[in-house]
């Protein structure tokens, strides 16, 4: 990977600006039964990323799975300050969008949700990701990797 990074044009489902470190989930995630709102930790015993925290991350995943309650659990995470800064999806997912929408409606938090398509797979955990209001997503390797390349 080059140190310059790359850019993708995403489709914002809930537009907004965010930046942070990527947590990439190769498998779908159900927030209900999958993430503990008190800690932001992934508790789904079947998930390969079990034990990781979504808190303050740019959460990247193919799509959601499982429970309808995931909308509420995402909103509770965002309210408790344990939620992600933004969600980038391979495919549109209404259930996750709803959680972010209601968190914004109630003035709790603004967590942009963007659909990236297949290009989500190019992002790696630890990449530095910037989300623009128009859905543009800029991805750069982490600082350590950039220094190594220099």
């Amino acid at each position, binding site marked *: 990977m080059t140190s310059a990074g790359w850019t993708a044009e995403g489709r914002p489902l809930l537009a907004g600006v965010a930046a942070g470190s990527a947590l990439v989930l190769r498998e779908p995630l159900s927030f209900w039964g999958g993430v503990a709102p008190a800690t932001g930790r992934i508790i789904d015993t079947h998930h390969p990323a079990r034990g990781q925290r979504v808190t303050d991350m740019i959460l990247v995943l193919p799509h959601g799975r499982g429970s*309808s309650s995931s909308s509420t659990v995402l909103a509770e995470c965002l309210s408790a300050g344990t939620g992600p800064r933004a969600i980038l999806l391979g*495919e549109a997912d209404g259930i996750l969008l*709803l959680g972010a929408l209601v968190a914004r409606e*109630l003035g709790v938090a603004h967590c942009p949700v963007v659909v990236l398509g297949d290009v989500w797979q190019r992002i790696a955990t630890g990449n530095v990701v910037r989300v623009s209001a128009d859905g543009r997503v800029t991805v750069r390797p982490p600082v350590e990797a950039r220094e190594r390349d220099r």
Partner: protein
Amino acid sequence: MLAGEHGTAMALAMRIVTAMAEAAGAERLIDISGAHIDSCLYHGPVGLRFAERLADDGARVRVPTTLNVSALDLLHPGSVRLDEPARSEARRLMAAYESMGCQPTWTCAPYQLPDRPGLGEHVCWAESNAIVFANSVLGARTDRYGDFMDICAAITGRVPAAGLHMAANRVGTVLFRLRGFGRAAPEEEAFWALLGHVVGARSANGVPVIDGAPTSVPEDHLKALGAGAASSGSVALIHVAGTTPEAPTLRAALGGRTPLRTIEIGPDDLRTAAAELSAVDSSGDLRAVSVGTPHLSLAGFERLTPMLAAARIHPDVTFYVSTGRDVLQGVEERGWLPVYQAPGIRLVVDTCTYITPILAPDETMAMTDSAKWAWYAPGNLGIAAAFGTMEDCVRSAVAGRVIRDFGWLDG
């Protein structure tokens, strides 16, 4: 509606519905004839704030609307060990939804209530197992909706013309062929629960079609199939060729097209599924059994009642049976209730054993006949679970240890 001439609650609900329509690329909204609300299950203060904001603004549902399980068992108030302030807030959440005109059904199986939507009818259902049942078994049309959208659709009476409301999106795309099973295996409900687990995990975002099953599959088996698939995956519609209403034939289920993928499923796949749904060490002392996820039907009680009437539950085991208050009334009318008042047996109503603290702190090894319960309970409750048939669950509860026999898979 967006401008708020019908009140701020209507405007808020319409903003959510409109945002969902934009996200789905829908060009218009369509009318629904009913809704099922999942948002009444308490998870924290945000869900309560949202519901009370709508209720305080005088929101009322426009269509007949049923309510999912809550975090409390109102008929057995002592059975849920929920601490304050969660207990009071959970009760307030229930009250908020009732005040908006929703029916206090408190069940995750609204399809077991007398009024249910018919073929082609548009509804907004949340609760993953209810969604897949409505689409697959009833042929009603609902997208895979989450919390908040359910009540907003009920208040506005509208949903986006998108997703599974559109005929084109209901065509099967992933074909599962059953191979190597005898006649007897599909007669076991656990067969369908395990099949659901596999189908959910391997369908991605496609619409699965199952081929090679018997042509008359009881509703309870289809319910187990859907609940398993909607837990391990994001499945919202399953066609069972020759059985479900939109799949009179395999060709019809696939819309006359070639499936994107074909996957063969044999007995070993279901054995693997059973292992995935069970703790590595399922041989220790059993402390709890939970059946009735999703809520046990009257047909389920008809099977379970004679088994439990003849059983003497081990003194270290609690046998939990979860159901809705509507089905409970049927159980009472049939004179079956005394069976469930025997030592070691506990009825759980309005809620379920894996979503709120019901199991005793030392009940850390549990068994279930539900793929959904086996999938979620270990993460939610921090316990070990083992999956088995309903018969195995009863036998194990009597013995005080996990007894399982998957020989029927070869039957």
